[in-house]
């Protein structure tokens, strides 16, 4: 039996103009919800495509569910939801789903039964309307996304790979997807998804891997990661707008390494070796009204910023403005 659903060792993928993935090694534990985090162009999609054996690595090895990634039998046990979603527009929903199921080696009649179950579960088949008999382009965008989830999960895969699953989802579908992920995990499936929404990743994932420019920056369980970054982060809440004196203190490089200014609220990262108590004294000395001063665990977002740099993240996409 294998311990890791995905085992990637020293994988390199080069293109003519650039190296998409360089020397990537990572382990996805069995039954984990695993986040693949990184800015656009970091190599997430390339990595996913190599896991799916759509493209082959130039160097290194990938093994999936204990078998080499290019074992044809493996693809039937993987479910994949690509970042950009779409289906055959002119095709009937049921026929699309049966086709996708057959591509995963399912028999038509078995697939038909499953399709009915899933359509009912996602409210696409109710007493008065069976959307399964409609064409794809007669469905609303949200319904099309549901159909695409069904296509990903219909064959009951052991490994589910979701590329940016939350992008473009309305809140209701996002909730449905989150519930589905949790349920899949409870049934012992391994889920790997890429995202640049750190809040989502932090809440859903057991483990994450942050990659940037094709290189792994950091990986491990959320707990380990937070723990190893946990001692130097402070939360500071003020009763009024910060004074010039206070800002001068926060800019003191001997004490503070980095500060994320939210006007009345500050995420502060202490300089190496600095004493939180010394900082508190200096802040009190400026005469500011302090509502909160707390040593906190950093958010994944902060760790991400620290490791990748603010330039690596698209503003407005992270939920942190």
């Amino acid at each position, binding site marked *: 039996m294998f311990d890791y659903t995905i085992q990637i060792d020293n994988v390199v993928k080069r293109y003519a103009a650039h190296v998409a993935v360089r020397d990537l090694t990572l382990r996805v534990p069995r039954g984990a919800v695993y986040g693949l985090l990184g800015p656009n162009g970091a190599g997430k999609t390339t990595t996913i495509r190599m896991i799916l054996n759509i493209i082959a690595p130039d160097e290194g090895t990938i093994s999936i569910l204990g078998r080499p990634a290019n074992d044809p039998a493996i*693809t039937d046990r993987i479910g994949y939801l690509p970042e950009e979603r779409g*289906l055959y527009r002119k095709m009937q929903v049921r*026929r699309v789903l049966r086709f996708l199921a057959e*591509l*995963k080696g399912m028999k038509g009649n078995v697939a038909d039964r499953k399709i009915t179950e899933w359509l009912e579960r996602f409210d696409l088949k109710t007493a008065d309307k069976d959307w399964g008999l409609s064409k794809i382009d007669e469905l609303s965008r949200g319904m099309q996304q549901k159909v695409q989830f069904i296509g990903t999960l219909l064959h009951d895969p052991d490994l589910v790979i979701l590329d940016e699953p939350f992008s473009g989802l309305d809140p209701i579908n996002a909730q449905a997807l989150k519930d589905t992920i949790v349920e899949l995990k409870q049934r012992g499936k391994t889920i790997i998804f890429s995202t640049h929404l750190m809040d989502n990743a932090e809440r859903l994932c057991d483990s994450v891997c942050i990659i940037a420019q094709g290189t792994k920056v950091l990986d491990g369980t959320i707990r380990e990661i937070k723990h190893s970054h946990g001692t130097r982060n402070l939360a500071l809440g003020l009763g009024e707008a910060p004074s010039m004196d206070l800002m001068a203190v926060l800019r003191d490089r001997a004490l503070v390494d980095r500060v994320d200014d939210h006007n009345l609220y500050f995420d502060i990262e202490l300089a190496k070796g600095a004493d939180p108590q010394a900082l508190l004294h200096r802040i009190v000395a400026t005469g500011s009204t302090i509502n909160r001063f707390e040593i906190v665990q950093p958010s994944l977002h902060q760790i991400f910023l620290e490791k990748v740099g603010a330039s690596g993240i698209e503003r407005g996409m992270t939920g942190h403005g």
Partner: protein
Amino acid sequence: MAKLWAIVKREFLERVRTKWFIIVTIFGPVFFGAMIIIPAVMAKRSKSSSEFINTRILDATTTGFGQRIADAMKRGQSPGAVVPQVSVIKPSELSQAESTATRQVMAKQLSGYVIADQRTLVGEEVRYAGRNATSIADMERLRAAVKDALLSQRLEGAGIESGKVRDLTFLPLRLSTERITDKGRGGSGAVSIIFAGAIAFLLYMSIIIYGQNVLRGVLEEKTSRVAEVVVSSVPSETLLAGKVLGVGAVGLLQQVIWVVTTVVMLKLRQPILEKFGVTSIPFSLPEISPGLGLLLLLFFILGFIFYASLYAAVGASVNTEQEAQQAVQPLLILLVATAVFINPILFNPTSRLASVMSWLPFSAPIIMPLRLSLGSVPWYELAGSLIGLLLACFGAVWIAARIYRVGLLMYGKRPTLREMGRWLSYSR
């Protein structure tokens, strides 16, 4: 294999289910049927036109020649039909008689009038004016009738008895043609040429239509990103093969329906035409031996695989319909260049041009079936053409599979030829 079958099945069924396919497939034979029946019915109209006979002959010859013309025109007409009227006129009153006749034609009492005068007697000119002056068949019959009349008058002038003259000059001659090939006599020449031309045209049309169809299908999968889901389940080569085979099967089905209904229609031509009261010349369909049928099928399959895989590669390398239209030009040029030579080769199937074009892989799938249906082709040319086409097929599929694999997941800028060249060397 099951997955390939799933793809072939989808490509086939989704196309056969469309209204477009059903309409075109049913409408095709109806169209062919109309092509066979309507011209024959039209020909009948112009043949036994009663207008031809509802004529006044203005005879200004003073020799009674007008009556001879009338007799000649009546020949072959059923008894009791309208008879041409003859008015004997003094040459000086001709212009007045003409204007009277013109008014009668305008009032639809007559179809037209013939003017016979001295120049007619010497065999120079006979004039006709009438509503049916543009009917080639009517005018040809009139000319023949006047010629007969002249001939019989001259023969009588030479001292031959008038009853005998009638027998001698009655010559309803028809030219019927038959073609001889290396294998012997084989149906009428015209039918054989029409048949070969139809085969070449059918192949050309289906390659273009269904090649485009493959291209659009690939582009749809690429732009809708379905391709990404599919190639995560099967290798891109399987998707490509399934698409080409599925679409090819649709094209083949349509052709089989067309050919079978057309053959049936041609067999039923006689009875149908009789319903319209037309007695048509019986003509025999060229015999298609099983061997020839098999060869035609083989050329269609190879030709389709050759072009369709290239069409698929084009579809995978572009992002929009507009880009596709540009990128597909080289393929279209190859096909159109071939089509341009269908006509000359049809009339000269043993020329050097014909033989060169059956060796070239891009024109062989159209030109070789054309030559095969016209008659026998030297075995070495047939073998060479087939082997060349087969090799070209392998080459095209090899190139297409690589371009397809890389292009399908490559979005954004349209690749240059050099970039596409580099794709060929990508492992995976």
